[in-house]
């Protein structure tokens, strides 16, 4: 099963390779990994999506906690969390196709961030399912290039 881990770390040189090295050295797989600063100075958040059975995920979480530069590890999979990814899609958009592309963009509440005579770049944010759907729909126009972030996620506020 796929898991999303939210990991706060000391923002020190080498911290990324400690985490990445842990995954490669122990044969765990990383599906995506996202890093960025948090509000707290010196602390970064990594959002890691990974795949494995319960025992493997338990090991991953514990091994991450064991790293001296890791402050906190949370498995967001079981918790209520919001998770978002972003994709940039550069798609063929010759005369006659644009209207339909724009309609799709509208329905998915995406943004057109760049246009030229025969192509458009569309920015779409959402969970993995939504991105899959729009990529699917755009495929038939001919996708020229695509850049996708991994997931970034936060636990929902308590109700």
């Amino acid at each position, binding site marked *: 099963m796929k898991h999303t881990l939210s990991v706060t*770390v*000391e923002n020190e*040189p*080498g911290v990324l*390779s*400690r985490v990445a*090295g842990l995954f490669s*050295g122990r044969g765990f797989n990383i599906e995506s990994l996202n890093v960025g600063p948090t509000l707290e100075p010196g602390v970064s958040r990594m959002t890691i999506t990974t795949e494995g059975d319960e*025992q493997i995920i*338990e*090991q991953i979480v*514990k*091994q991450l*906690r*064991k790293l*001296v*530069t*890791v*402050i906190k590890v949370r498995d967001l999979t079981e918790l209520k969390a919001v998770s978002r990814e972003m994709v940039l899609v550069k798609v063929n958009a010759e005369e006659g196709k644009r209207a339909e592309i724009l309609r799709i963009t509208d329905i998915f509440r995406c943004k057109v961030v760049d246009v030229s005579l025969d192509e458009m770049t569309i920015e779409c944010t959402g969970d993995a399912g939504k991105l899959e759907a729009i990529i699917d729909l755009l495929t038939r126009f001919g996708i020229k290039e695509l850049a996708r972030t991994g997931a970034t996620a936060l636990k929902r506020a308590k109700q």
Partner: protein
Amino acid sequence: MQLTGAQVLLKCLEKEAVKTVFGFPGGAVIDIYDELPNFSIEHILVRHEQGAIHAADGYARATGEVGVCLVTSGPGATNAVTGIATAYMDSIPVVIFTGQVPTPLIGNDAFQEVDIVGITRPCTKHNYLVKDVRDLARVVKQAFYLARSGRPGPVLVDLPKDVLQATCTFEYPRNVRMRSYNPNMRPHAGQTRKVARLLQEAERPLIYSGGGVLSARAHRELTWLARRLSIPVTSTLMGLGAFPGDDELWLGMLGMHGTYAANMAVNNCDLLLAIGARFDDRVTGKVNTFAPKATIVHVDIDPTSIQKNVAVHVPLVADCKSALSALKEELEPGLDVPAWQEKHETWVKQVRSWAEEHPLTYAPSENGRIKPQFVVEKIYEITKGEAIIATEVGQNQMWAAQFYRFRTPNSFLSSGGLGTMGYGFPAAMGAQKAFPEKLVINIAGDGSIQMCIQEMATVVCNNLPVKIVILNNGYLGMVRQWQELFYKKNYCQTCMDAQPDFVRLAEAYGAEGYRITETKDVEPVLREAFASDKPAIVDVRVEKEENVYPMVPAGASLTEMLLV
């Protein structure tokens, strides 16, 4: 007052009460060596950096304190890597200082530059590159704290030359505060009560103890629990010495070369109390047939060890000393020792009868050649079990573990997790430095001893009278044993009969050399060598194709033992 980085470092070592550093100089660390005579720290100059790190490790294992090693950048640092990995696998507290090229040159493929922090990331508990002299004291403080606290391990500090030359004011931090590192030492009260209850309910309990008991110095608590509750004890290779090897309840080591009694007890117990051990594959054999009838309790300071290889029923995350003390508190009030004895009487009898059925033994010699096991037995007799024994790796290591009955903690130094040939002799040297008055013996193989033999010069010139007893079978014996048993006796590249004359080699270094070729000479010659105040090599020509038994073939169940 302004101090240079080199001075700050040495001051920090004094603050940490470091007495001895094992090291080897080079361009990147000359500044430290330049200051060394002005400080109270003794430096042992080795002949190879692997010797330095193993010596620091042996010092740490024998004393329970942090061992310290200092090497230069590049090849100095890489030469130490095997020893760092050795210490990491066995959770030994050592701090390694490596020189590094000046910070402006880092990343330029400068002369003698390697990314040692990158190289050692997976085999240290933590490591640091110090980029600013003002961080140095804090980093050193943290390094020692990390090395010895929680699950101990090696910590490396990389020191660029310009940082060693830069100046700052010195202040040694009083305490360490790290928001990302807080090892959990105290056991959970509810879990502790649960374990106590399980102990009360069990009919056939067994203690399986490991190196964690020794690193937490919990041997007394362990012995209390076993003796008061009358529970038989087995241990891993790393745990030898935590429970007296001459006690009635002692079953010997378990696992691949464990005793029949220990492995049968694991197979039949209804409660397995794992304390500071990590269910290594050499211990469990085939995991899904390991301790099939038992409820498993696992006490360990490292949560990652729990549920890693074997599913356990009751985890107890704590250091072994706190956990065992908490159990004692739970059980001691109104403890009825005779009642416990009675409750476990049948089980203890059963276990003893397994031990009598198939004790650790060996076939008498048929051709008059010396049996290696006999040599270890004699070493035990002569030293009354009071020596510090460091082993190499292979058959020599297993025979030492089986036939020397370790009675005291920190008296058995052996590379368990990594299985590093060449470990034993320098480790013995480190232990001898810590305990000049004690008899320190390296039980060696003819192959392994050649891997760090250069330290003969170090022991001679530092008056460290380590005794090397080579169980010389002319083979890489353990590999040959596998070839014999599992590869149709294809002894490819394991016959090492081209060897130096070890007696003359010892003499060439200025040590004593002895050779024993007949069984009757074993005892008197060992006595003579041990009585001398000089380092010595005793070359014992033993049976060439002797095997270590019992043996559980790799991947088989513990009950599938090949016996003598």
